[in-house]
């Protein structure tokens, strides 16, 4: 166990200062305004300037376009980015998953230029996983890819392709053998989004993010864009998916988060801080400060318990716990504030940065993104508690595939 403050050596301290100064110059009001407007989780200038320095994926070796950061430096960068605004960096996280598959499964002559551009902030890759009636069941993909010589023709549509409108490629799950058991008839492609036949339609969420439906109508691409073997898509997918669902054993000496839920906790933490500041500044009806009100103190305490619980719960469990904590406590904090808690950023009289109001809207998505909390509960039930799997009509094949 170790919860010490990281003592920075001179190099790291200098780097921290360098990063902070650079990011402060980079994240101008324009950047925030654009993100607020578009909800894209992306900013061209930010990505390209970070990429130019090797700071977009700074943990990668310099020869791959990164900055060869060690764990401490990487953590410094993450915290400094969070200090500015994590939202704009969302597409970086999204792209990072397929980049690993591209490196592993595509021939170097195709992969290398894409990887180089991606690391340098000029190329984004979005995830073409979910379909309009697919829920979280990726193996059930119906988007069809049919081979004709060196070319493939793709038809169908994908839902929740976040970032499609700013990305160059989509990492696409297609059905190539409709007669095979469902996880054995899947092939992955890296589809250039400027290919004729691709139509992108935006959808806005009530947390202000943008995602997309992407329609594929007789989209013809070359076989070189295939990622991995034909009908071997499930294994190709597995890499990134495993990572996303991983148990998250910490090999970093405490320099990485215990789960992706830590990010949800930070959103909750901001709201807690905001409410605490608001309480200090707000007079109670009797003229005292709301910070002296027993109920305010108690409710902040309750939120803090859930914040800490979310932060301390590891792996997929932490992802579920942190989402639950954020959903419940953001609602409770809005209640605590009363009507001013309803005012969003830029509204007249909004509290602070309206982090609490935002947290309440943002929270709902955390229970769904990257697999619903129910999917994760099922994984935990089976893999941690060892409970038997239900015998659903459509489950056998899927589960057999997962086990492998």
């Amino acid at each position, binding site marked *: 166990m170790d919860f010490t403050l990281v003592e920075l050596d001179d190099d790291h301290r200098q780097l921290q200062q360098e990063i902070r100064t650079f990011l402060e110059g980079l994240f101008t009001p324009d950047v925030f305004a654009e993100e607020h407007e578009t909800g894209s989780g992306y900013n061209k200038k930010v990505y390209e300037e970070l990429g130019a320095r090797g700071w977009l994926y700074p943990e990668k070796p310099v020869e791959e376009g990164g900055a060869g950061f060690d764990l401490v430096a990487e953590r410094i960068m993450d915290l400094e980015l969070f200090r500015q605004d994590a939202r704009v960096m969302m597409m970086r996280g999204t792209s990072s998953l397929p980049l690993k598959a591209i490196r592993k499964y595509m021939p170097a002559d195709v992969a290398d230029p894409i990887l180089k551009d991606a690391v340098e902030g000029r190329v984004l890759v979005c995830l073409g996983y979910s379909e309009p009636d697919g829920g979280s069941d990726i193996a059930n993909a119906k988007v069809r890819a049919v081979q004709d010589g060196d070319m493939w023709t793709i038809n169908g549509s994908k839902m929740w392709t976040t970032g499609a409108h700013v990305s160059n490629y989509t990492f696409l799950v297609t059905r190539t053998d409709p007669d095979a058991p469902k996880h054995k008839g899947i092939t992955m492609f890296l589809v250039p989004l400027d290919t004729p036949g691709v139509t992108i339609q935006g959808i806005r*969420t009530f947390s202000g993010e943008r995602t997309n439906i992407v329609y594929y109508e007789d989209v013809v691409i070359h076989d070189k864009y295939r990622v991995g073997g034909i009908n071997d898509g499930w294994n190709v997918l597995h890499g990134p998916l495993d990572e996303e669902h991983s148990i998250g054993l910490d090999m970093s000496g405490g320099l990485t988060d215990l789960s992706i839920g830590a990010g949800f906790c930070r959103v909750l933490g901001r709201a807690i801080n905001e409410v605490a500041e608001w309480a200090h500044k707000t007079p109670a009806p009797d003229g005292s400060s709301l910070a002296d009100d027993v109920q305010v103190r108690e409710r902040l305490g309750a939120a803090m318990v859930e914040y800490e619980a979310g932060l301390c719960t590891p792996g997929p469990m932490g992802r579920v716990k942190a989402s639950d904590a954020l959903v419940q406590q953001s609602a409770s904090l809005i209640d605590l504030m009363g009507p001013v808690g309803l005012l969003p950023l830029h509204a007249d009289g909004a509290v602070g940065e309206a982090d609490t109001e935002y947290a309440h809207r943002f929270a709902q998505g955390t229970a769904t993104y990257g697999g619903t909390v129910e999917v994760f509960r099922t994984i935990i039930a089976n893999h941690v508690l060892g409970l038997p799997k239900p015998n659903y009509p459509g489950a056998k094949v899927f589960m057999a595939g997962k086990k492998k």
Partner: protein
Amino acid sequence: MDLLELRRQDYSLDEDHQLLLTAFGEFFSEQSPTSLVRECEPLGFSQDLWNRLVEMGGTSMGLPESVGGDGAGMIELTLVAEEFGRAIAPVPYIEHTVTARALAAAGESTVLPAALDGSHIVALASFPVQAGSPQLVPAGAVARSVLALVGDDLVLFTVDTPPAHVVNQGSTPLAWWDFDAIADRAVLATGARAHEIYDRAHDERMTLTAAALVGLTEPALNIAVEFSKTRETMGVPIATLQGVSFPMTDVAIAIAGARNVARKAAWYLEHAPDERPELPAIAMVYASQTATKGTQVTAHLQGGLGFTIEADASLYFLRSKGWGALAGDPQAKLIAIGDHVLNTVN
């Protein structure tokens, strides 16, 4: 509390109540489809719907016959509020109703006639007026007059033009009222009587808001129920999974109970206001919890879809807090409820 009281506990509606429920249910579902609700965002007010509601008697029904109203009581108003909530209708039905009733109770006669015919919207301040502290007033962006407590005075503040709307999560006509700056103020009552009228208006607002929150949770649940029957996973409708069906069932249970609590609170306000003074707060707290949970379940159950602004689920979700937190912290009311419990055993 007296657990051995020999009291009737009859929650059934008589025929007149049923007819009222049907009439306003039809009115709101026809006149306030979700398309209208969306069109009226972000202000949350439709003058046209308001006019129709006035025609329907929505602004006069709750006022005493002596001032030209229809003399309906809290039970009837609560039934209407439930239907109003079900349609998440963009009109200030609750604020206007409870404030106009308070004006009538205070013998106000300048503004009241125009309140009765709906041409002058009135609203209720949620907190006592403190010098130097403007207040966010529910319906304050469409109201010409706001009733507030200033010390021990019940004061009606009136303006020519309501202050600017403040965009908010629930898309209701919230506005900051800076009472210090308003010259047109009429003291309607002072001392105990002022507090009595103001507290009563608050109790009525909590009760009607509770009913409205129950009302809005029900169509949200229906969206979830219908979605769950058609969406499949692993070859079965998700509705057959207890991880899906049990949360919906718990919401249905909460709706059934919260509806009865709100109606019961209305009955006591009407017939025995001193007997169970804590019921409006209980109704409000439980309805707020019900709406919070109920609209979350719906939004979540639809996966990504429930998280989009296109989905009607979002309308209900955003109003669960957007309506529920308008008058301050529902949970803060627990203290007053606890005080009542402590008083009854003392």
